[in-house]
């Protein structure tokens, strides 16, 4: 097991190297530090100012040297200082990380529970009007713009029902108060597409022989669904969960900045608005690392839970 995990992590190294290359290409070649400085310094900066800006951030070194620094720094997670506020980027990530993790975890777990139970329900009534209209509702939900979900949710739950505070965040136990609304909205938003997908997975399972055998033995339909089908459907569902992780980051971006939650998403949006290239670079790399870590975790959890998967 340990060997497998180690090998899996080693496989990730060339991929991370690729990510570093892409970020270098984007942030040093496509847009030169010169251009960054000019955009950052506002209208018509003097050459003196530009040079000083470049020098302070080490952008005036030869390209090869910059590339070396870029690779080494990112691999050691030395993100340096923000281009705008000169604060260390790590400090902001450390502040925002836990908050974002809390929100993402709630979204992930809530989303999984919500969509699996709805899809089980729909799969149980397959072929009936409930199924048909349920699927139609899913397509409707998939077609709604993210921001409309946010606005409508805020309006309904916050303004009319006075259920939770509209925006803001507080540390500690009362944080759920502030997280509830974004989490509910995030879950509802993703429900349509995931229910559609999970239903297909479950119906595929239901056509297999073992389900017919179970039925022949007289196992009730509910027990078949919850015991047999659900267990087997978990593999594709887990795989698709990994692909949700980037979407969680996307959801976080919008949700966090809209609800004023001081997480990583909020930092990213701020950085985009203030053209803070160093921070965006750091967050992009960090996002890739997290995603790859998620992939490794899924593979390992397959190996742990599914006896059919062997660790070669």
């Amino acid at each position, binding site marked *: 097991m340990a060997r497998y995990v180690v090998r899996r992590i080693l496989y990730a190294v*060339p*991929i991370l190297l*690729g*990510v570093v*290359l*892409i*970020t270098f290409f*984007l*942030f040093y070649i*496509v*847009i030169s530090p010169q251009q960054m400085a000019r955009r950052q310094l506002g209208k018509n900066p003097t050459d003196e100012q530009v040079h000083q800006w470049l020098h302070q951030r080490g952008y005036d070194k030869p390209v090869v040297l910059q590339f070396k620094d870029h690779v080494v720094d990112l691999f050691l997670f030395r993100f340096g200082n923000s281009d705008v506020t000169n604060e260390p980027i790590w400090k902001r990530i450390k502040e925002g990380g836990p908050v974002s993790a809390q929100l993402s975890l709630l979204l992930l777990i809530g989303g999984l529970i919500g969509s699996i139970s709805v899809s089980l329900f729909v799969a149980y009534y397959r072929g009936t009007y409930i199924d048909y209209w349920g699927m139609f509702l899913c*397509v*409707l939900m*998939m*077609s*709604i*713009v*993210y*921001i*409309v979900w946010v*606005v409508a949710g805020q*309006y309904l739950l916050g303004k009319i029902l006075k259920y939770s505070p509209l925006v803001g965040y507080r540390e500690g136990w009362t944080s759920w108060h502030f997280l509830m609304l974004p989490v509910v909205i995030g879950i509802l938003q993703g429900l349509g597409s995931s229910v*559609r997908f999970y*239903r*297909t997975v479950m*119906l*595929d399972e239901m*056509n297999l022989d073992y389900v017919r055998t179970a039925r022949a033995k007289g196992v009730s339909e509910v027990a078949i669904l919850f015991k047999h089908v659900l267990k087997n459907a978990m593999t594709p569902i887990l795989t698709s969960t990994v692909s949700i*992780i*980037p979407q969680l*980051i*996307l959801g976080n*971006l*919008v949700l966090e*900045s809209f609800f004023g939650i001081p997480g990583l998403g909020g930092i*990213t*949006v701020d950085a*985009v*608005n203030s*053209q803070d*290239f160093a921070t*965006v*670079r750091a*967050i*992009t790399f960090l*996002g*890739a690392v997290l*995603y*790859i870590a998620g*992939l490794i975790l899924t593979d390992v959890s397959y190996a742990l839970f599914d006896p059919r998967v062997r660790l070669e």
Partner: protein
Amino acid sequence: MAAFFQSDLFINSIPILLAVGFVWALVQAGRQPLWAEAYRRLRRNPMAIGAIVIIGLYASVGFLDSLGRFDARDGRRHTIIDRLFEARYHGQRERTYSAPMATMTTGEPTPHELLFPHQHLMGTDGVGDDVVYLTLKGCRTALIVGVVTQLIVTPLALFFGLSAGYFGKRVDDAIQYFYTVLDSIPGILLLIALLLVMGRGLPQICIALGITSWVGLCRLARGETLKHREREYVRAARALGVSHWRILFRHILPNLLPIVIISTTLGISGQMLTESILSFLQIGVEPGTGSWGNMVDAARLELAREPVVWWNLAAAATALFILVLAFNILGDALRDAIDPRLRSS
């Protein structure tokens, strides 16, 4: 030469050529038995017909909004849609917000009488523009974002996917490595990074969305090509000495067309939804261009007003919702019509 690319003749000929090409492709496809069968099945599906009609309406608005003439008097290009609304409102704007069909403005300390009472079907926005007009202007942008992006995505994905699957070995390794790396950066972050670096604008958005969304189709195409590579018809072609590229694009590609068309149709709606998120992040289309994303984003800030200014948001969100829904329904219907095997039981 540069003058030619800016001339009305050139700019107007692009949408006409695109429309003619699209219709021609549809007619040509209808002559082939596989697609004729698909058409027949589509026609029997009322939902699909509805979706096609709606997309057609949006497309014709976008088409009319692409044809126009440069006016030297104000240095702007006026499209047919612009002209229609200029004729109706005599080229004038209201003072500020007004509710649908209202007679007075809202959002001012002292409401003023409107220039055109009872004539703004969906009210006016902050600078007094008619909301229906703005919504119609958004059609073109949304369709460009959806369609042009897919025109970048599909060839890119097919080229890499087909070559990876067909040639195997080093080519496959290189392409797989390339897309794994690209895919391991969460899409939205890559999109943000790309747009931050390239700057705002419609072409930039299409390119950035194209770069971030071709991997899925590429994987699919690679997998399918792997399956087809060893089939008899490919072996026969190879034995007859047909060149590799000809085998790929004349023999294998037609077999992949069903999944390509379905994923393209569904992709369009995804791109249009993403565009609205980009507007929210302030890296969407430039403010001057009509876009539903920008409208929703601008309206979002107005909801705190009392009385609530909802019509702006409602118009843009509904327009986008209906178009995306139509594409989603059409995608599903196409899946059922073209390839019943893919049907999600």
